[in-house]
């Protein structure tokens, strides 16, 4: 909403520098995003007429425009906009002009063609923040060569571009913003009553309205204007509209917009002579109904489906006596009843529409307008009369309209005003203030929240009647907010609540931090792939099973919720490989999503996975060991086939007897499907299981003060025997002296025989209480050898 300062000053003597005013508005929650100065610095900019339009021989995005600035000469301009026609009047910045933004206009060549000035858009003239309308076409009678400031009658004005929140429909009007600001400044605020001179046949004799669906339209009002003379509106009105961001069109349309901006109440004008008997019916659309709107588009309408929610509300229409829809309620007028140059008798309408219905219709048809925005947020039920009368007052003055006596209304029973019983104690609690009732009333009254009925002698409780233009305000907390806004959030003294709790992380949260550090410690960088996959991604990664899908994905490539971290990390490796970093080591800790029984929310287990480009399974196992060591967890590996992994190079990760993950190499076919060449190492673990393990506190074992003895044992072992099994046997058989067993060499040769290999272990023995004797070492060695040779069909080498 753009609030024009001179317009605001018609209702209150607003004081202060623009920056101060902007700060005050912002402190009220009416955030000023930009302060614009309009009508300034237009020296050198004159009215010109377009004589000819030609395409630029060398450029598509520029055209050549010949303009006349009153001397009859054709002056060639290069222009990047295409919205003007021959004969249009435009604003030309002549050579030597300094534009409001500081740009100096000089004669220059663009792709070989001379440009002798610049044709201005409204944003270049600081009349608009954006350039959405292209070149500004002037609706002026001024002679060519007239300075623009004179032609537009422009005086310097200040415009505050305000971001109005959804709960402040009243602030979508000059009057509403001024009311708030005047209260803040403590200056009088007066909205004059429109003076309407009436004449001719009463309105009720030529028009009527019937509301069929009162939940669609609780209030509907009409006035009749006769002998309207339409044409350009006066310059002062055009300037206000331009400053407010609207384009002047004609007197009747401009008055309509002007009244909407001033009062916040949208209105609509019909050509009375196109409506038989002036009779209107307000109802919801019927099945199969359609309507040609004033932009010439035929629109299929939606009837209510009975659900009473969202789209199910259906569209609202205004119909004529034959029950044919002639207007799309609150969103856009109809084609057949539109005001034209030939219109003399105008039927003026103002209504209150159901907010949800308007929201749904405008959204469905993608027709968001200044009017629909206001209806969606809620217009002032009691504001119809003023809006209708203000229109008539202006039309009588500017369009010679004769105003038919009386207003015609079709209304639902009046809505009782909202009265909120307000306790000073509750307000003070919610705000953290220490205000008495008098102070609160003093802040509420100027903004139209009238207070009465102190029910306790000390005024600790009073009734607040919420004004009709604040439909959002219904409870005590809303009243507290109004008091807080006008007291000033900045004036509330800070207090810090004292938590009696100890701030800390849960075991899972601490676990996540340690797990991330463990993966970083072994050289992985943390990645964060998007958790959405393309429909074929899971299958391409060799994974099966159900996955949840999005009902309304932005793109189909992001329509499936991942059930594994594998596809996302494969994509990350492929991405890095395509940027010449094929050997990346990435890890991710994140949720995956598994559908559950009907309607229940899915399971969201957290996993951590590392992916290693250009790396085979052995390195993946080493990485797993590094992680296990860093976390202090005893993670075992057991060969097993795993979906998505290399059929003969994969293993389960076992922790405390349970499978909590996998390690190995990505299936070459999967890597290929993700366009990765070379081997890809993979580790994946369940975060919750690891975190539980991390809660165990390691108990210290005394370190032996006696010397240790080392011995090496090499066995020739059949292929199917896992090295880890031999390792475990050595550990077991070596008790109680064995301290550690490390596999240090694996050797295959033809002499050993096909499918047999030599596994060499380095064993360290030590006792806590004595230096080992030769016999200690020998007997332990024998036990170990016997166990391995017996259990694993192994031979000592």
């Amino acid at each position: 909403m753009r609030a024009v300062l001179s317009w605001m000053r018609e209702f209150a003597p607003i004081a202060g520098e623009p920056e101060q005013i902007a700060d005050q508005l912002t402190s009220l929650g009416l955030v000023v995003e930009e302060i614009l100065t309009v009508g300034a610095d237009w020296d050198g900019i004159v009215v010109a007429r377009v004589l000819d339009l030609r395409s630029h021989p060398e450029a598509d995005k520029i055209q050549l425009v010949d303009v006349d600035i009153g001397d009859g000469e054709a002056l060639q301009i290069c222009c990047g906009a295409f919205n003007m026609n021959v004969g249009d009047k435009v604003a030309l910045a002549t050579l030597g002009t300094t534009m409001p933004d500081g740009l100096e206009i000089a004669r220059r060549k663009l792709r070989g063609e001379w440009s002798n000035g610049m044709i201005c858009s409204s944003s270049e003239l600081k009349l608009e923040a954006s350039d959405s309308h292209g070149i500004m076409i002037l609706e002026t009678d001024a002679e060519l060569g007239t300075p623009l400031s004179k032609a537009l009658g422009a005086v310097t004005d200040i415009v505050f571009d305000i971001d109005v929140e959804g709960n402040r429909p009243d602030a979508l009007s000059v009057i509403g913003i001024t009311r708030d600001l005047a209260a803040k400044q403590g200056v009088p605020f007066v909205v004059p009553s429109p003076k309407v001179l009436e004449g001719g046949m009463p309105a009720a004799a030529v028009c009527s309205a019937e509301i069929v669906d009162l939940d669609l339209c609780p209030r509907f009002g009409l006035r009749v204007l006769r002998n309207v003379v339409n044409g350009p509106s006066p310059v002062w009105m055009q300037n206000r509209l331009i400053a407010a961001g609207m384009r002047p069109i004609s007197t009747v349309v401009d008055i309509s917009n002007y009244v909407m901006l001033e009062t916040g109440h949208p209105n609509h004008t019909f050509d009375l002579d196109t409506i038989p008997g002036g009779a209107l019916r307000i109802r919801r659309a019927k099945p199969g109904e359609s309507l040609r709107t004033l932009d010439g588009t035929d629109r299929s309408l939606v009837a209510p489906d009975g659900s009473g929610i969202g789209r199910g509300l259906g569209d609202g229409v205004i119909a004529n006596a034959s029950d044919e829809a002639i207007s799309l309620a609150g969103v856009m007028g109809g084609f057949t009843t539109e005001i034209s140059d030939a219109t003399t008798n105008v039927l003026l309408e103002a209504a209150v529409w159901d907010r949800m219905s308007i929201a749904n219709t405008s959204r469905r048809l993608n027709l968001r307008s200044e009017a629909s925005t206001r209806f969606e947020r809620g217009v002032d039920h009691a504001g119809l009369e003023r809006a209708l009368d203000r229109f008539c007052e202006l039309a009588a003055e500017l369009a010679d309209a004769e105003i038919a006596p009386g207003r015609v209304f079709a209304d639902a029973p009046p809505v009782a005003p909202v009265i909120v019983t307000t306790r000073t104690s509750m307000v003070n609690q919610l705000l953290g203030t220490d205000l008495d009732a008098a102070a609160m009333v003093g802040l509420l009254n100027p903004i139209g929240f009238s207070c009465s009925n102190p029910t306790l002698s000390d005024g600790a409780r009073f009734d607040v009647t919420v004004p009709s233009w604040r439909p959002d305000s219904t409870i005590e907390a809303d009243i507290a907010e109004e008091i807080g806004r006008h007291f000033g959030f900045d004036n509330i003294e800070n207090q810090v609540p004292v938590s009696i709790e100890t701030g800390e992380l849960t075991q899972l949260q601490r676990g996540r931090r340690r797990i991330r550090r463990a993966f970083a410690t072994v050289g992985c960088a943390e990645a964060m792939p998007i958790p959405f996959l393309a429909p074929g991604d899971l299958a391409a990664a060799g994974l099966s099973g159900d996955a949840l899908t999005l009902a309304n994905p932005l793109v189909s490539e992001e329509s499936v919720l991942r059930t594994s971290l594998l596809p996302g990390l494969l994509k990350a490796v492929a991405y890095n490989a395509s940027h010449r970093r094929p050997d990346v080591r990435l890890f991710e800790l994140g949720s995956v999503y598994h559908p559950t029984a009907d309607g229940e929310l899915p399971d969201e287990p957290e996993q951590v996975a590392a992916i290693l480009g250009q790396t085979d399974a052995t390195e993946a196992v080493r990485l797993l060991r590094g992680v296990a060591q860093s976390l202090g967890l005893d993670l075992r590996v057991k060969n097993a086939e795993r979906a998505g992994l290399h059929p003969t190079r994969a293993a389960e990760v076992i922790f405390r007897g349970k499978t909590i993950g996998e390690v190995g190499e990505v299936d070459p076919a999967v890597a290929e499907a993700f366009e990765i060449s070379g081997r890809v190492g993979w580790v994946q673990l369940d975060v919750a299981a690891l975190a539980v393990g991390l809660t165990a506190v390691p108990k210290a074992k005394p370190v032996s003060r006696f010397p240790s003895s080392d011995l090496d044992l090499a066995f020739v072992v059949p292929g199917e025997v896992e090295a880890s099994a031999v390792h475990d046997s050595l550990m077991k058989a070596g008790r109680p002296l064995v301290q550690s067993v490390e596999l240090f060499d694996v050797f295959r040769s033809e002499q050993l025989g096909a499918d047999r290999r030599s596994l060499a272990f380095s064993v360290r023995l030590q006792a806590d209480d004595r230096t080992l004797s030769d016999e200690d070492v020998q007997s332990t060695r024998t036990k170990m050898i016997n166990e391995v040779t017996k259990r694993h069909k192994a031979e000592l080498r």
Partner: protein
Amino acid sequence: MPDIPEIPSEISELGARVSAVLAQVESAESSDELTAILSAATGKTGPITVARKAMSQVDPTHRKSVGMRVQDAKTTIETAVEARRVGLGAAERTARVQAERMDLTEVVGTPTAGHIHPLTQAWEDLEDAFIGMGFTVAEGPHVETDWYNFDALNIPKGHPARDGFDSLYVNNGEEGSTVLRTHTSPVQIRTMQAQEPPIYIIAPGRVFRRDTADATHLPVFHQIEGLVIDKGIGLAHLAGTIEKFTQAFFGEEFHSRLRPNYFPFTEPSAEFDIQRPDGSWLELGGSGVVHPNVLRAGGIDPEEWSGFAFGFGIDRFLQIKHGVTDLREAFTNDIRFLEQF
């Protein structure tokens, strides 16, 4: 001089012999050579031993002074040998370290260091700041019911604000009943349901919107939410908490302010801004006093308890902290980006 007994040559020549040994010591080139020289000098046929043996021929009155001369000679040789040995050792070490010279700037290879994502770093830093203020960290599911995501937060079905969230709906259960949470606020409700007041929690987490990615918006992003429910809590406590956090997290020279705003789940509602030391303001997030309808949805009596909530984007934090101009870059998983942190 017949009354003066003749001095044996073993003794009279001792000085010259010692000098000869000292010359050998000076020219010795190794520790072994020195050992040989020393044992020759002090051995059976060495000058010291033979001089000692000749002592018997010396007039008894001179024997003491001669004996001291012999002892001095031995000490002189031993001292020289030791000095030469030290000198030789230093030279040997010098020679050895010279031979071992390395150019440490020509070392090949770097051990691979890992990296924690800057988002995680920002997330954990924020958690730590609030933990220091007595908050615990609460969590909730990413896939939510529309009741937790909207209804319980005072956004009933059909409310225009629902559209403002650009929700991504999940095909699960009844149509429109399951949504990827659009904010971390559902955690407020889940916490209220699970825990009696007083409540002091933050809820950092991943959230989802149907937004086309651009330099400052992503469809998958991260928020941190705060909720305090206690007796007599109001806007002043919100302002005080935000200010304390601002100073704890950014530094003493930073300040915060609240300004009125609108959110369906809080009343009064406020936007909060951070003021940098240079006076400029940074819009950070939304906040307010918890709406009574939200308290009721969480099973808490608004007449007995009140509270405040606040929330802001973590991604934006990392963007400002590290000067990331295009937020998308932080989530392409490009190692060239990740390894900077």
